[in-house]
């Protein structure tokens, strides 16, 4: 099993690069306490006067005198908490709505589809802005907002796949055995929907990284002093011409992780087509 997965990745260079980036950042997130040279919120009052990269602070310090490298490393951990939680919750909601909608059809499908239409009619960022300004920025609220904004899209995909898969003979076979709808939806149909759903998951994870950054940029990010890449850019983007290192490194981190997600999605999709 493991070997076939490895072989598949080796066939798609883009998926391989994508996985490498994602895993590398994941390791950074996992090992943050071990590899970060400083406490991410500790202030070096001496370095505050000259924040530029030095031997003591390889990537310099930020506008509050905190070590950029350490915040970058701990920021990976924040990202690896926020993004998977938010995306998973969106997928859980989307799948729990979309699969039954596609499987049962009828009024439930109509209800879910119309509701999805309604929510999808809102530009995503507007949902975030309205919700976050109303609820206040916090991990939970970001998860709620991402779930609300993404669940309809996920449910559409899940519904579409279910609609196609429910016509498969093995579903008919399960029905003919008198299996419960729950079993059919989640044991017979869902495992076969995983390909497109995983591709979509990668894409949405990438968007969520962008989104958390953008929310931070608009001042709606995670509360400080949480080391958060988006927040790091926000706090220092205005200093770009003076102290480029504060914003550029987190920008690179965000971009590389998103690129990783997109490349992986791309690779998986191509493999899926074969």
């Amino acid at each position, binding site marked *: 099993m493991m070997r076939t997965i490895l072989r598949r990745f080796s066939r798609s260079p883009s998926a391989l690069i994508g996985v490498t980036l994602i895993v590398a950042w994941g390791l950074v997130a996992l090992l943050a306490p071990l590899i970060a040279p400083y406490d991410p919120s500790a202030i070096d009052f001496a370095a505050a006067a000259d924040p530029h990269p030095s031997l003591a602070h390889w990537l310099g310090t930020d506008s509050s005198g905190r070590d950029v490298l350490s915040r970058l490393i701990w920021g990976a951990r924040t990202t690896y908490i926020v993004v998977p939680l938010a995306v998973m919750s969106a997928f859980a909601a989307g799948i729990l709505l979309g699969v039954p909608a596609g499987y049962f059809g009828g009024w439930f499908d109509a209800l879910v589809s119309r509701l999805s239409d309604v929510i999808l009619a809102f530009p995503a960022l507007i949902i975030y802005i309205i919700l976050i300004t109303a609820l206040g920025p916090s991990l939970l609220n970001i998860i709620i907002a991402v779930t609300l904004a993404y669940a309809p899209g996920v449910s559409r995909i899940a519904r579409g796949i279910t609609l196609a898969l429910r016509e498969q003979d093995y579903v008919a076979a399960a*029905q*003919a*055995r*008198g299996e419960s709808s729950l079993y059919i939806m989640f044991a017979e149909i869902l495992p076969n929907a995983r390909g497109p759903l995983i591709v979509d998951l990668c894409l949405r994870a990438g968007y969520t990284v962008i989104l958390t950054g953008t929310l931070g940029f608009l001042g709606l990010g995670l509360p400080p002093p949480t080391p958060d890449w988006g927040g790091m850019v926000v706090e220092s983007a205005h200093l770009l011409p003076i102290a480029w290192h504060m914003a550029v490194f987190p920008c690179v981190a965000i971009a590389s992780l998103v690129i990783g997600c997109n490349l992986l999605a791309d690779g998986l999709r191509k493999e899926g087509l074969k």
Partner: protein
Amino acid sequence: MSAPLLVVDNLHIAYRGDAGDVTVVKNFSLTLGSSETYGLVGESGSGKSTAAFALLGYLAEGGRIVSGSIKVNGAEITTLDEEGLRHLRGGDIAMVYQEPASALNPVLTIGRQLVEARLAHRPGNKAQALADAASMLTKVRIGDVQAMLRRYPHQLSGGQAQRVVIAMALLAEPKLLVLDEPTTGLDATVEAGVVDLIGELAQKIGMGLLYISHNLALVGRICERVGVMYAGRVVEEGSTRDIFGRPRHPYTQALIACRPVAGEAATSRRLTVIPGQPPAPGIHIEGCAFVPRCPHAVPGRCDQAAAIAVKTIAGKHFVRCARADDELSVVTAAPEAETQSLPGREVIRIEHLSKAYLPRNAFGLARRVDLTQLPKANDDISLSVRQSEILSVVGESGSGKSTLARILIGLEEASEGRVLLLDQDVARRRAWRRPRSLLRALQMVFQNPDSTLNPSHKVGAIIGRAVKRLGQIQGRQAITARVDELLAQVQLPQSFTGKYPHELSGGQRQRVGIARAFAGNPDIIIADEPVSALDVSVQAAIVNLLLDMQRESGTTFVFISHDLALVRHISDRVVVMFGGRIMETGRPAEIFAPPYHPYTEALLQAAREGRRKVPAFDPAPPPRTGCRYAGRCPRRIDGLCEIKEPPRQATQGGHVIFCHLSWEQFGAAQTFSEGD
């Protein structure tokens, strides 16, 4: 004979694969005269289509010609540049494709696509081209030509689409027409029309014809010469008469023998079987690729490279078989001791069953409508099935035979009528509302080997789940034991429990599907076209397996099929359906001989060799009143058939026909009125 139109010499074609190149066409040579008709026969994966496309200089992504040459009118085409290829394609060689609907551009009108083909190779203006297109449509027997020119592909029936594609191919006046499985997927009666049209055009126009098909019988009807391909090689080639009359290669022999012949009464229900399955592309077999399946293979001789050398039998009859001179003959199945199934108790009784699909509104709720106003998939069906009986339901697509099966098994609810399953009415009880005992009693074997097994589950889990649900067996060990037993019954090794469906061949998957259906020792099995999607050489084995299991367990069989020959071969009783209605029921002997219903007659005509020409027609949706077949019936009594329900006419033996014609008139009319 003038210089040959097409000369292919020792062509090798390979595709890029995960583990290096895979050669899919080997030692392919072919010489075709300018008005010769040649049939290339083979199963899926035999390389026949690849070879055919290569003649137009076209290879799918990753493919390349490794060696060999293709000369059209003496000009080498393997080295042509893009412009040269452009002139060749459509100009010298034109092509007709499998699945005509997808071969036409969905967003352009038929007229536009025809004009384009015409203008690409012959000078002229648009008006001229349009006129040519119209006359060509007439030639392929399209009715309202002007309307057709303005239509889009999705508005066409399958038969129409194929005739349009043929017209398109002919517009550039090619010297060679290549047809790649042109009738696969068409209904029997429609297929017959298209095949006849092709044969007729080939004669009239006088061009070369290369006909690719998996159906040996069909090819034999049209072509002067036939080549049989197996695993990338032509294993036998000769005149149609030689191939059918004196097949020399064991594969050719088996291919001919494994198909039941429609006109033949069955001596045994078992079919002649080719064991195993064709090798997957990329698997290298030294010597003759057929050795693993060949009853005559001699180790040390057939598995040598020399085994595939071409041997000339006589004249133009060639064969690649080491034992070609041994006058081999086909090993037929040993006739079984025929256990005449005794009519047991009634296990299924269907009374006035109708099924209509209710339209739904924007809120997903069924709209209240008058049922009589809706087109029905099943319309007033009454039928009974007795224990241990094999009942076949035949009909074309849209006849409602699958809907009937789905209602029986509990995937759909009937709209009206009763369905008594072991004396319990299940007409409006889907499977999940049926008691466990009824679920166990009735199981199904599905048509499509690609979708019958859940690709995410292992074989062991698939059968195990059925054992657990239906076999009333608990405990892991007991379930495993039963799974192994079932696998053995369907002649699969125990090691298959750990395999995923994608690791299995189509035939193996169908076997797993059968094992699953038998998991709970059902009283009744519904088999919905269980072999129609399989390769010819594999079909017989599956049919035999089903029959064996039926005989051993005394299970009742409801066999859904469009294959008249097969049905005739295996059934105790046959039901012929059309447009959601039963047209005729009876024992095979009664159905397949006059007197018969005009529709049964048409079906038989289409399948019969040396039959009369079938006029090409555009199947219209069946009318809502009167006889459903009235619209297509050549023996229609105008003013009666399409208005009044046909009466039920029955013999004492249980042969029933629904028709306005009198019993004496059935089958009496030996000629069709040649009306369009």
